[in-house]
């Protein structure tokens, strides 16, 4: 048992957090969100140079061969600084699927480019009627000659508007919610028939609705085994869950720091409002939530390579607990700030909004409480 990060990991985290402190304060972040694209290619290049994009990618493809705890470090730092760049979409989800299930050719084509910051990916798995179920796939891929033709509507694809390539789940067999018969395809985001409607999300990030109309891809576009795409897709989603748990832990820590600082500064009735016991204990409950969430983020990272059932059980447990913590910490951070907390002017409301969206990402608390319950007697 070892709860320490290695010296290398600590150095990496320190340099990443130093960079974010210097280049990515709240004003800088707001300016980036206000741009047309909603994120910064300059920041992205800096992250590539810091090694953040390749840290958890395989050595063989210009990565650093890190593990889930390296991803955790990055996401926690990003949560702390409210980073809006497409790391989750490109590196964790997109490159994760390719590294995990892609052919050697796909890996060679995609991963080094991702590590260098020259390739953006998005995982297009959601659909309008799917809610949080990745097996609900009505997008179709029909065999045509050597290749495939894709048709369908992919919903709320994170950073889908910025992506160079999309990983699309499509049905190659079976009925709409069947586990079997789902395949994954690597699709050029600018291919004929791909229409992307990008939009901002409530927390200042980006997403897109993507329609595919007779989109042709060749045989090499298939990722992994035909009809067996659900397994790598579920694994990617669990990696995504671990990542957003870590991000939420970073965001909660920042929110708690800012809230306690505010409580010590802000005066009413002639005293700092932090002298009121009720507000102190509220801050303590935020802290308790955040510490428990940190424990679950660690456990989630540790169990990403466990057998499927154990992995899903723990990842859902993490999402439930972190989701509840994110909700409590976000809501109370706003409440303890009072009026200024419900404006866009301080960072705190932006932490609240991000924490709200993180609690919903990949399924809300109820969804994962149910998924966890499937393994209750295991």
């Amino acid at each position: 048992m070892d709860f320490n990060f290695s010296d290398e990991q600590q150095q990496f985290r320190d340099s990443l957090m130093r960079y974010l402190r210097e280049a990515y304060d709240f004003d800088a972040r707001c300016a980036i969100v206000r741009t047309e694209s909603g994120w910064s290619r300059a920041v992205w290049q800096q992250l590539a140079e810091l090694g953040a994009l390749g840290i958890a990618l395989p050595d063989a493809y210009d990565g650093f061969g890190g593990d889930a705890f390296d991803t955790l470090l990055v996401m926690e730092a990003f949560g702390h600084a409210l980073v809006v760049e497409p790391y989750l979409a490109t590196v964790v989800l997109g490159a994760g699927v390719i590294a995990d299930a892609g052919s050697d050719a796909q890996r060679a084509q995609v991963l080094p480019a991702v590590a260098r910051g020259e390739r953006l990916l998005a995982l297009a798995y959601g659909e309008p009627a799917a809610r949080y179920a990745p097996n609900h796939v009505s997008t179709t891929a029909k065999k045509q000659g050597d290749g495939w033709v894709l048709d369908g509507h992919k919903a709320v694809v994170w950073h889908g508007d910025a992506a160079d390539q999309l990983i699309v789940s499509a049905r190659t067999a079976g009925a709409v919610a069947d586990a079997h018969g789902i395949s994954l395809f690597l699709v050029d985001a600018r291919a004929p028939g791909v229409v992307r409607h990008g939009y901002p999300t409530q927390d200042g990030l980006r997403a897109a609705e993507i329609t595919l109309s007779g989109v042709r891809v060749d045989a090499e576009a298939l990722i992994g085994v035909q009809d067996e795409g659900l397994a790598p897709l579920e694994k990617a989603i669990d990696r995504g869950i671990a990542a957003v748990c870590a991000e939420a832990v970073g965001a909660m820590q920042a929110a708690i720091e800012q809230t306690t600082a505010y409580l010590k500064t802000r005066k009413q009735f002639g005293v700092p409002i932090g002298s009121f016991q009720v507000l102190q204990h509220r801050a303590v409950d935020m802290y308790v939530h955040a510490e428990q969430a940190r424990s679950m983020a660690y456990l989630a990272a540790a169990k990403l390579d466990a057998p499927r059932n154990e992995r899903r059980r723990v990842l859902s447990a993490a999402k439930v607990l972190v989701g509840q913590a994110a909700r409590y910490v976000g809501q109370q951070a706003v409440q303890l700030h009072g009026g200024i907390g419900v404006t866009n002017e301080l960072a705190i409301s932006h932490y609240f909004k991000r924490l709200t969206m993180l609690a919903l990402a990949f399924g809300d608390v109820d969804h994962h409480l149910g998924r966890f319950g499937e393994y209750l007697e295991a």
Partner: protein
Amino acid sequence: MDLNFTPEEQSFRAEVRAFIDAHLPADLRAKVLEGRRMTKEDYLRWHRILYRQGWVAPHWPKAFGGAGWNAVQQHIFHEECADAGAPALMPFGLVMVGPVIMAFGTPAQQAYFLPRILSGEHWWCQGYSEPGSGSDLASLKTRAERRGDVYIVNGQKTWTTLAQYADWMFCLVRTDPQARKQEGISFLLIDMKSPGISVRPIIMLDGEHEVNEVFFDNVEVPVANRIGEENKGWTYAKFLLAHERTGIAEVGRSKRWLKRLKAIAARERACGGGRLIDDPRFRDRIAQVEIELMALEVTTLRVIAAEMEKKAPGPEASLLKIRGSEIQQTLSELLMLALGPYAAPYQPAALDAGYDGPIVGPEYGVAHTGLYFNMRKTTIYGGSNEIQRNIIAKMMLGF
């Protein structure tokens, strides 16, 4: 003991409902029900319709042009308006400064201001909060120095709701800086077109322009626009705060939101297929908030019944504020959660009436996440829920 409305009250309800059915414009109703952005004119259209009917001021005495209804009638009226999706009536003139002018204003003030509040000619805003004051209202710093027939006002107000629309502000200012906190405060009526006033928008966390900062730079206010005596403003301010909390529980609106939530949960699909409303977890969440709302409605009626017997609204109003705000927050959260992944898109343009661009996700959902964000204010403003608990601790439990 009888929890039923009397036949008279029931026929009053029928009359109100028939009027609203006949006169509430369909486009306004749709905007309200869907939670879209309201313009100043939207509010005023409905205000004027009620004004023409003589119903715009349910709680004002007939002598001042009000409907003169009792507390139960007012409750029925507000409940019917809320249920039908009528735009809210702005409280600043009708509920806040109007009663102060009736109680403490000069005949000239009453003759000038009250009819214009009723007609909607004057849109009022509230100049209470300041950057440093928050829940400690009496610590306000905006100065008014007497110079002959005018006061010279300097300072700053904040959280001024819809000041961008306002013609007049009622404003607490410090006229005696030497006096103790609550003393030395006066209550002024200030023309928002006066030179030296500037209004800066504050954008709320949902991206909307709802509140403002208002700056006073040597603004001249005629002494004739002072309510009552100099340095006695705190008395009038407290009088107003006691009245402000009527209807704070927002039971009617919450019932409408609950109805909407059920309708949407019956349309949304749960993950395993089937309707979201049949998902046991979501169903329980709806059931729980509905039960809390049922209890709050009866509690509200109990407070109204006490008012009817001329027991002044007491700290029970704090209870209505606490539970009312929490229920509103829960409902707005469930409206967001019902959307699943489509809670994420931010589509401010789609909130405008007449928007005909693309909409991401179900059309009924465009306002929900913003509403959830916005509703966080309800446990903060009007005396935070922590302050309300302090009040109950002191007034009801004797701490």
